[in-house]
């Protein structure tokens, strides 16, 4: 076990989410042949907007500026199993469908306020579902959009350098370091 694994283990143990690759533990084994697994430029633009709604620009960069949409397409294509890729593509359709139902048009046509309202509603549904689901049930489809936004953002140059205190070569260790609310996480380049 290396230190990275240790920290991850502690995070899992204490209720932190483990974000990334293998979080869809219960993979569905009946691939739906009807779903296309390639992303288009429109998909990337769509994902940028979803991510920006989850992580909008504040005093730190927004997800779109951090190219999280592009990251998501690459990560899903290369790191997800086929069933998980299918679930993700379906999830994009479901976001659009929910948007039509709530606001009468596609997500890309929605205003920033409409998008926020929509994703807050979907996230509420997600939280509720996750709380009640059985271990073997698949996670709620929005789970991966949210998690990949967090992962893609905080590992991007823009996210890392504007939303955290990026210290690649600290040169020293202080184990009793004063902290006040608002101070950012101190990160390295990993």
């Amino acid at each position, binding site marked *: 076990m290396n230190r990275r694994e240790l920290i991850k283990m502690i995070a899992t143990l204490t209720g932190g989410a483990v974000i990334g690759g293998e979080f869809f533990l219960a993979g569905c084994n009946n691939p739906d042949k009807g779903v296309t697994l390639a992303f288009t430029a429109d998909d990337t633009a769509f994902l940028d907007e979803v991510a920006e709604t989850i992580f909008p620009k504040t005093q730190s960069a927004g997800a779109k500026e951090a190219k999280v949409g592009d990251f998501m397409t690459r990560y899903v294509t290369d790191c997800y199993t086929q069933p998980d890729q299918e679930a993700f593509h379906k999830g994009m359709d479901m976001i659009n469908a929910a948007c039509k139902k709530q606001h009468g048009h596609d997500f890309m046509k929605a205003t920033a306020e409409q998008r926020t309202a929509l994703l807050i509603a979907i996230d509420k549904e997600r939280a509720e579902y996750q709380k009640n689901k059985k271990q073997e049930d698949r996670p709620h489809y929005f789970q991966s959009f949210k998690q990949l936004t*967090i992962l893609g953002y905080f590992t991007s140059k823009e996210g890392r350098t504007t939303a955290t205190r990026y*210290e690649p070569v600290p040169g020293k260790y202080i184990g009793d370091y*004063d902290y006040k609310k608002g101070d950012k996480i101190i990160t*390295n380049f990993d």
Partner: protein
Amino acid sequence: MPNNHYDAIVVGSGISGGWAAKELTEKGLKVLLLERGRDIKHVKDYAEANKPIWEYPHRGDRTQQMIEDYPNLKRDYPLNERNLHYWASDKDCPFTESKPYSWFRGYHVGGRSLMWGRQSYRWCEEDFEANGREGIGVDWPIRYKDVESWYTYVEKFAGIQGSYEHLPQLPDSHFLPAMELNIVEKDVAAKIKKHYNNLRTLIIGRSAHITQKIPGRELCQYRDMCWNGCPFGGYFSTQSSTLPAAEATGNLTLRPFSLVKEIMYDKDTKKAKGVVVLDTTDNKTYEFTSKIVFLCASSFNSTWVLMNSATDIWPDGLGSSSGELGHNVMDHHFRCGAGGQVEGFEDKYYFGHRPTGFYIPRFRNFGSDKRDYLRGFGYQGAASRQGWGREVAELSIGGDFKDALSEPGAWSIGASAFGEILPYHDNVIKLNRNKTDKWGLPVLDMSVEIKENEKKMRKDMQEDLAEMLNIAGVKNVRTYDNEYVPGMGIHEMGTARMGRDPKTSVLNGNNQVWDCQNVFVTDGACMTSASCVNPSLTYMALTARAADFAVSELKKGNL
């Protein structure tokens, strides 16, 4: 015609081989250092060392293609996008598993000294005595006092940071100034110490990072990026430490891409003549001769070389006359322990990325403590504030959510135990001639498992830590067991054990093969028992000791 004769041949350039090369060259021997993999030049070839996470397409994570290509490596952290090139290819170098085994290897100059965990602990008197007293395996032919001065010797050169604790179960090293426990770890340490009346302690993890200048190296910069190779030479590796020392003597020839197929044995003199090398760049074999051979190819590969040598005399290979070659495989079993949340300390954080954690030395079956199993375990862990990966239940999406994750979360603390595995004769590796590697050589088959003693210990490994954390006031303490597959500790030991009797051991008390006394095995293969502490420091000490002995024997004309 190149010169193919040397005073000494060292097989393998990892922690043990690097030490053998340094010691033998410094004592004036002309040494050929053979490495099966490619060369990696210090600093220059650490391609990943200064590469930020956003330059990796999958941000360090594994792809489905990687999972397919690395069926063994995928079982743990070595399969990752960052330093994958340091881990041996499962495809090129396969092995078979009669029982599940995870073998994580580094086939390049420096071996696993580049990726090791760097935790460095001395063995204690008890570790060398337990086998003999309890009738387990065979008695070690040496005691702590035989190795003590060698520990000091290697520590002075390698640079080990740690705190002086005067503990009988964990002798102090010759330390560089200790790294610091953080404020929460200090608080938990004080509470544990008080409650257990000093019988249990939480101390800084001792590690091979330099906190004081050593010539040719820079201080640890607290980047915690060690496993990519350190451009500062902040931690001990072959490249940062032993190789430059060996090269400085002018006595070293380093030959990468040199896979040692066998040791050439002369049945008339009953000595090794040298080795046969398969050059993996041209697939031709070359013979090199020497007065002595140091096998430091990593535990299983050193044994593999022995198994492939002198088979016309001993069908099971050089050193097999006792019937113990390949047997008594050990590792450390781990991946279980406990963790929980720490309340308070919201006004405290830490600065810098400390490359070590805390250590809780063994307390079970030590002194007056008695359990229903033998030996013990130590814990390695850390306290930290949660990072951006955490769940923030009360926040949904939006700017507040992002800003909340930009700040550290609550403190948490946890650890994994590392437990001793007893040497069992039927935990064995064998040659599997039905399967070959990329070069047509027979592969190893693994048949290793943990047994009742270890399984009983795993209960304590979880519950003892939960108890200590509860006593320290940690909240929501939970135990875990993420299941251990032999080998995952990457502390493989045994298969050519040292002993007092050639009938029951492969090596004598000076790491000489009983059956062929100018061959020395000084890596993990030589271990007679496993202790519960990380083994590398002991390999360093045993290697330096054996090198000293070998040279004095050479001078006396005994080899």
